[in-house]
């Protein structure tokens, strides 16, 4: 190292011009672009990351949807010949993996990344660079997963990938390796993200916002983050063991070497059941925001909705074995898990009743966002009730692994989670882009999706009870006319659903081409995120207004008339904004963008490729990760004004202390 040891240079005491040292010595400049592709690639802004999460997740949604359509085409008629058995097995594996890990989870992340800081009055998340790392790991994990298509075949073991069918003997292609490593990579993204959001929510709320004054979406997301923190390590360990078995010949799940195959099932479902709540709770949060706004009433029983969400978060850990009722647990285990599964219906039911009570006595405006929310109540209720029928273990012995289950969880996940996501799109689109999505197309979108969901998944209840087994690459006339006819209806329904989604895409394109037409407060909303411009400025809020009640924005707009007791409007959104701007903070701290999250994240899939194909490649990946980490640690905490081109004045960009 070129260290020159010599006594410190004596200072010149004469008043010399002060030289401001550049901190971004050479390589360690921080990126400063605020426009163009660089501003997206190196951003640490939670809003840009949220949008990128959303775009990537939606692309994966379309991919997963096309896979679903192929599956439905194959099953439209008996003995379908569109797909081979191998291709079919690969497609149902990738369809489920994509929808769960690459669509619904990151779409939840899109919403909570964008709206949690806005809802709690923060200027960014607690660890902005880790937030960026999470997004890039998710994206690279997803791309890595689909890389298997070109490098030896997609995984063919089902999204649950039961041992020993996941072993190298029974699935000799590299598909399962790609699957296991990709999910470990996206797992890192979920884990870092969840810690980030927990710290953000617990520490960075606006003054006066106690936990019981947090917006309900923030609450549900907080529960989800705790579920992630505890669930992701379990699946990561299981996947790590599986990778070890397939790559290095270990025998954790190798039945031929004496392993108990049920070990994998327990590990998978201890993760897998909380995962269901990870998928659904953000949507519950979204509709819990939307229903009050369009009923023009506060959420009925806010504390009960909060506590039922938390109760789901706790009870969700005690029900995993209901996925294994037929797998040969003893009767005592089956009985216990049967009972716990029934009782987890209670907090879920409480939520549904509270949503209805919120509408009751209100003045309901049927915007598309509201329609999707009501749709969620109805469709999720169907899914929830069919869920109760499988909680009855003996009944489940007949139904498990039939299409009755497929119908159940699609009602829960499509009718529940996805409807909530679409409700969120329509509700928050003007906030994110300053443009209102077209309501007329929105209605078409909604009704086609409702029709599609019921046409696709309702017949599956029947074909399942008529004995149609899951994960079969063909249906056969021998299964009887109910199975064949219901499958044809389901296929037609799937295409109706696809048209519904297509109309949403058309709506997005049309809106993007249109003018910025959204007023400041298009819905007469109630919560904090609407107390800023649309789209929000980079620093979110000019000043952070203190919080006095759950529906802070509403209470700033409306007040009770002391004489008549009537509630009337006292301020407009514009007036509230103007007041905020007048009190704007002088010096706003914001994190600078960084090169290193994407660099570090890019090394991780290289390690994965190395594990599968050649160990030296893994070392190269490891070196990239290591250098990325040291670049991360050594880069200056602040971008110099001279780093900007032209040199920037005004509020400095400063990194929060860590992250």
């Amino acid at each position, binding site marked *: 190292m070129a260290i020159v040891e010599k006594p410190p240079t004596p200072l010149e005491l004469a008043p010399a011009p002060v030289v401001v040292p550049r901190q971004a010595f050479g390589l360690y400049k921080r990126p400063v672009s605020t426009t163009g592709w660089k501003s997206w690639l190196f951003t640490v802004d939670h809003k840009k990351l949220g949008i990128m999460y959303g775009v990537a997740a939606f692309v994966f949604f379309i991919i997963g949807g096309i896979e679903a359509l192929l599956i439905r085409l194959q099953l439209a008629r008996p003995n379908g010949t569109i797909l081979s058995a191998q291709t079919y097995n690969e497609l149902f594996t990738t369809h489920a993996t994509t929808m769960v890990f690459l669509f619904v989870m990151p779409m939840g992340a899109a919403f909570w990344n964008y709206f949690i800081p806005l809802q709690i009055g923060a200027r960014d998340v607690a660890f902005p660079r880790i937030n960026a790392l999470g997004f890039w790991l998710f994206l690279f994990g997803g791309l890595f997963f689909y890389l298997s298509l070109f490098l030896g075949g997609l995984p063919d073991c089902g999204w649950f990938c039961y041992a020993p069918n996941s072993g190298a003997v029974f699935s000799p292609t590299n598909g399962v390796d790609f699957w296991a490593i990709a999910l470990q990579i996206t797992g890192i993204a979920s884990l870092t993200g969840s810690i980030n959001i927990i710290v953000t929510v617990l520490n960075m709320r606006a003054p006066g916002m106690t936990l019981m004054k947090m917006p309900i979406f923030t609450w549900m997301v907080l529960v989800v983050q705790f579920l992630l923190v505890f669930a992701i390590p379990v699946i990561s360990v299981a996947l790590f063991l599986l990778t070890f078995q397939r790559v290095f010949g270990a025998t954790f799940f190798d039945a031929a070497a004496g392993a108990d195959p*049920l070990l994998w099932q327990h590990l998978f479902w201890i993760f897998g059941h909380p995962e269901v709540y990870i998928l659904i709770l953000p949507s519950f949060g979204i509709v819990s925001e939307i229903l009050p706004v369009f009923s023009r009433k506060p959420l009925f*029983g806010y504390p009960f909705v909060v506590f039922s969400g938390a109760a789901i978060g706790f009870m969700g850990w005690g029900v995993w074995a209901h996925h294994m009722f037929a*797998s*040969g647990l003893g009767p005592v285990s089956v009985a216990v898990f049967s009972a716990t599964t029934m*009782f987890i219906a209670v907090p879920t039911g409480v939520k549904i009743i509270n949503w209805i009570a919120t509408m009751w*006595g209100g*003045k309901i405006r049927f915007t598309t966002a509201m329609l999707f929310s009501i749709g969620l109540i109805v469709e999720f209720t169907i899914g929830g009730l069919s869920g109760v029928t499988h909680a009855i273990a003996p009944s489940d012995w007949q139904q498990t692994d039939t299409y009755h289950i497929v119908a159940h969880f699609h009602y829960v996940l499509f009718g529940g989670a996805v409807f909530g996501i679409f409700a969120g799109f329509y509700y928050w689109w003007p906030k994110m882009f300053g443009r209102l999505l077209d309501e007329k197309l929105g209605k078409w979108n909604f009704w086609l999706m409702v029709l599609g969901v019921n046409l696709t998944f309702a017949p599956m209840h*029947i074909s399942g009870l008529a004995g149609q087994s*899951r994960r079969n690459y063909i249906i056969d006339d021998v299964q009887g006319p109910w199975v064949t006819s219901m499958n044809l209806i389901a296929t037609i329904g799937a295409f109706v659903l696809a048209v519904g989604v297509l109309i949403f895409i058309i709506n997005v394109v049309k809106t993007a081409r249109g003018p910025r037409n959204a007023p400041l407060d298009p819905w007469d909303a109630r919560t904090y995120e609407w107390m800023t411009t649309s789209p929000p400025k980079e620093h979110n809020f000019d000043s952070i207004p203190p919080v006095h009640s759950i529906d802070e924005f509403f209470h700033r707009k409306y007040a009770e008339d002391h004489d008549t007791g009537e509630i009337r409007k006292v301020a407009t959104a514009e007036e509230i904004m103007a007041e905020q701007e007048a009190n704007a903070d002088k010096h706003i701290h914001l994190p600078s963008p960084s090169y290193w999250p994407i660099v570090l994240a890019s090394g991780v899939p290289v390690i994965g490729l190395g594990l599968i194909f050649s160990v030296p490649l893994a070392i190269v990946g490891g070196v990239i990760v290591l250098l990325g980490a040291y670049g991360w640690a050594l880069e200056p905490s602040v971008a110099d004004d001279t780093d900007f081109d032209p040199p920037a004045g005004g509020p400095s960009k400063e990194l929060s202390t860590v992250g």
Partner: protein
Amino acid sequence: MSNRGRRAVAGAAIAAGLVLLAGCGDSSPLDTWNPKGVDAQKIHDLQWWVFAIAGIVGIVVFAVVAVAVVKFRDRGDDRLPKQVHGAPKLEVAWTIAPAVLLAGIAVPTLAAVFDLTKQDDPGFEITVIGQQWWWEYQYRGSYNGQSLDGIVTSGEMVIPAGVRVPLRTTSRDVIHSWWVPALNGKRDAVPNRFHDWNIQAFEPGDHLGWCTEFCGLSHANMRAHAVALTPENFVAWAKNQQKPAAKPTDPTALQGMGVFAAQCARCHTVKGLTQTVKDPTTGVETEQPVIAAPDQQLVSGAAPSLTHLMSRTSFAGAIYDLKKPGCTNDPAYDQAYPTGTAGNCLNRADMESWLRNAPEMKPMYAQLNDDKKYRGMPALGLSEQQIDLLVAYLVTLK
């Protein structure tokens, strides 16, 4: 379309579903709501009213939603509705109400769980062994004085009607699940584990079953039959199953036996099959039994025993008919079944195609893997003449 319309659609779908289910008769051989055995009946007795309660709760919820959206729609009046934040007493009530309802469902459920896992002791049990992609059944014990020891069959499990038979499920490779919906729910067949289960049929008859745990490429082609016979027929069947195969007298069949011993007996057992072996030192020729060694050829280490092939109705994981429809639809077939049917009954077309190229008839990973083993039956490259000879031999295996 109004909200009322949408709910009408949803409601109609559910109502239609219930009606259809009630109407789901024998046209659906795998119907879960058409019990034909005591265990399935118990499940059905439990589940129909759970479905009913769920349906009623659903209808109530939809009705309330319908009333809410109709009654409380915005009618353009600008005043805010009353800002109600909640009603704690009401909340407690509707937390407790579903809990009580569910507790009511839980009590009979838990009783049924223990009831259905209890086993009877009729003096024999059947070990159900899954492998990619067919089922094997092994019998132990005796029934009505007739020993069942050593009976090994595949594709069709044969039981005496009215007897609740204890089953033990296991697997030789991956996890499968044995399910005959008309008789009982399903139970996974897990390697290294034996899971207790039961099967009982009220009346004699053939009940279709299906593998329900994803088990690889041909999961859709792994089916099962549970055939219930009258007690007399069952005893006759067992007697026949315990006999070794007789050496055929017909010269063509005898030639076929040679082909079988050379090509098929590496994996498939035919009890009583012998081969002339010449001692290399003494030159003495003796008849030696032919022992199949599927453990050296197959990942699962087993192939179906063909000793009594013609006493079955299906082959290849129960996906192809072994007999012509004209033969199985004959009322006399029930009497002929226990002791095997004559050769002219054979569904020659499918059987010959199968022998010609099995992987084309049923997807299997039928090429050698790294351990030099197959999964499923490979294409043997038999000549047409060999196939004819083999068929002539196979039809003698009653």
